């Protein structure tokens, strides 16, 4: 029995296929403007018996692939239980959402917080800011990490932060220091959310943004505790969905 987890995010679509608990296939592609076509493409190139969808495109998947679905919150919680079994707190920063999740013993979701409407402090925020400062996104964290000082960015709103960055550039500030300040503003926002759900160790950091080295370092410093990042943090939701797909079989 091969179970597939399909995570249709705002930025990328991820697929994980399991045989039992063993990962036999993974794939990732940009969501672009056609999430359905992209998801279809990934599913066509893999062999699977049952699929469970998650991510913001989960309702679409339900409609077009008859795939049952769970929220990203449940999927990430399940994925973390697999990849970091000792974690009790999850921070997931994706393309358009930030979520802080606290897990009960046994790994079930006990409480969560999520941004309500704007993309403040999410992957999209970092993407826009990287582009404003002329850094390729892949390199944004590394460049920020090399900054000597830090330009304070007080706003967490994408629109306001953009004008703050514009003034900082006009004032002659070093763009790497501005970059670091922007990372810090994301960390402050994430920290506030984590504290609202309680910060029981260990803390896992998932989602595509967890690959950003500067963010990880600043988060560790800010929280004064170890942060665990799974090997492929962006696949956590898809992994969780694949596991839940397998488990739903046992129950029915």
């Amino acid at each position, binding site marked *: 029995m091969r179970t597939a987890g399909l995570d249709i995010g705002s930025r990328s679509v991820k697929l994980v296929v399991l045989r039992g608990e063993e990962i036999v296939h993974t794939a990732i592609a940009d969501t672009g403007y056609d999430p359905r076509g992209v998801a279809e493409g990934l599913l066509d190139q893999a062999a699977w018996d049952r699929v469970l969808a998650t991510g913001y495109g989960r*309702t679409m998947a339900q409609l077009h692939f008859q795939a049952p679905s*769970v929220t990203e919150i449940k999927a990430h919680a399940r994925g973390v239980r697999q990849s970091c079994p000792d974690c009790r707190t999850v921070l997931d920063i994706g393309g358009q*959402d930030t979520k802080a999740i606290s897990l009960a013993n046994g790994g079930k979701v006990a409480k*969560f917080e*999520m941004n*309500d*409407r704007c993309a403040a402090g999410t992957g999209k925020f970092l993407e826009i800011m990287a582009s404003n400062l002329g850094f390729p996104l892949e390199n944004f964290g590394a460049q920020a990490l090399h900054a000597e000082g830090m330009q304070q960015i007080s706003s967490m709103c994408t629109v306001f932060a953009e004008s703050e960055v514009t003034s900082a550039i006009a004032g002659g500030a070093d763009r790497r220091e501005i970059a670091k300040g922007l990372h810090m503003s994301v960390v402050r926002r994430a920290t506030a959310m984590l504290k609202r759900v309680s910060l029981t160790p260990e803390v896992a950091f998932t989602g595509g943004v967890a690959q950003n080295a500067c963010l990880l370092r600043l988060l560790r410093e800010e929280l004064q505790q170890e942060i665990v990042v799974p090997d492929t943090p962006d696949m956590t939701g898809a992994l969780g969905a694949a596991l839940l797909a397998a488990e739903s079989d046992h129950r029915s």
Partner: protein
Amino acid sequence: MSEANRRMWTELGLDLQAHDQLLSVLSDAYQQIHLSQKNRPESTSYFDFVMSEIHCQRIGELLQEKQQGRKLVGSYCVFVPEEIVQAANATLVGLCSGADFAEEEVEKYLPRNTCSLIKSSLGFKLGRVCPFLEGSDMIVGENTCDGKKKFYETLRDLVPNLYVMDLPQMKSEQGRQMLRAEFYRFLEAMQDLTGFQVDAAALQNGIRMVNEKRRAIHRLQSLRTADPAPISGLDALLASQIFLYEDPRRFAREVHKICDELEERIERGEGAFPANAPRILVSGCPMAVPNWKVPHMVESAGAVIVGEESCVGERGSRNQTGEDGETLEELMEAVIERYFQIDCAIFTPNPDRTEHILDMAKRYRADGVIHYGLQFCQPYLMESFGVEKALEDKGIPVLRLETDYSQEDLGQLQTRVEAFLELLK
């Protein structure tokens, strides 16, 4: 739409084109949200009728009453004592405030960061699409939150007949005295409006009529404690919404009929949702017609709403007014006593509301509570933290939502609501 209706709206001064648009959106929403529900009690066809006639039949009746000399009073708040209005030979209706309308016009008067409810109240006036408001002989504003207080200053220049009632903000003896003084002032104003001198018998009649209407909704609410719940939250919310403007006697009669059917359903163990559906209590800001956004989302995700701790819900309709007084003063005291118990978030401190939420969660056997806050509604948003803590201390999961009347946050809201229901399972 019949010619008679169009003539009526024209005479009221409505903007017919805008009003047509509003009614068409409303009818589509009702179709999609309410009529698509499965397993509805048959007698809820009463709601369908009232909603299909929302700006037709009821306002027509009220205008007829007006022709016979009865006055129409519009209000924006459950603090306005309907007993006194009835006693003075007038009819009270709640005014429209549940949808965004004429938003660009509204922003000429109010800052963007004003709550949807207040913006909507002004939008319906500026857009000239609320027949109840245009037909009112008196519009009663009330000093609840700062937003509404300042809104009434704006409204005063736009309508000829605004009356503002002051309200206490503490449940102290001074607070009670203030409410007493204000209710007596309101009694005077009502008598001036109608020319009718209210005596004990008239007030007693008013009290009885409003109690009778409330008795029906109390019965409906109590039936929702059954497991499985015999009626959806969306339908029960309609009852609370219609309660605010429907003919009181017809409302009581028809809601009792619905209750009869619900009792039969309970007997048969039949619910509006499968027996294992999570039971949700909604607490917080009022949801006026047609603000069905969050209940629709919650129930589409498979949960059933079993109670509303809201002004359009149990906060607004609970508690009866004592009918036994013999003098006007004794009966007025009973009215004051009932309204002084309303635990609106403008009161400080406001522990009664938290107690009521805990009590409701228990009575309605809620698996979780969704705290519904309108963006920029400071009183309820600020109370939501304490409410969340009190519930979590009792082991009841809480989801705090903050939203408005727009559709822009549907994706994120849906994820949060679904994730909350997942954790209840």
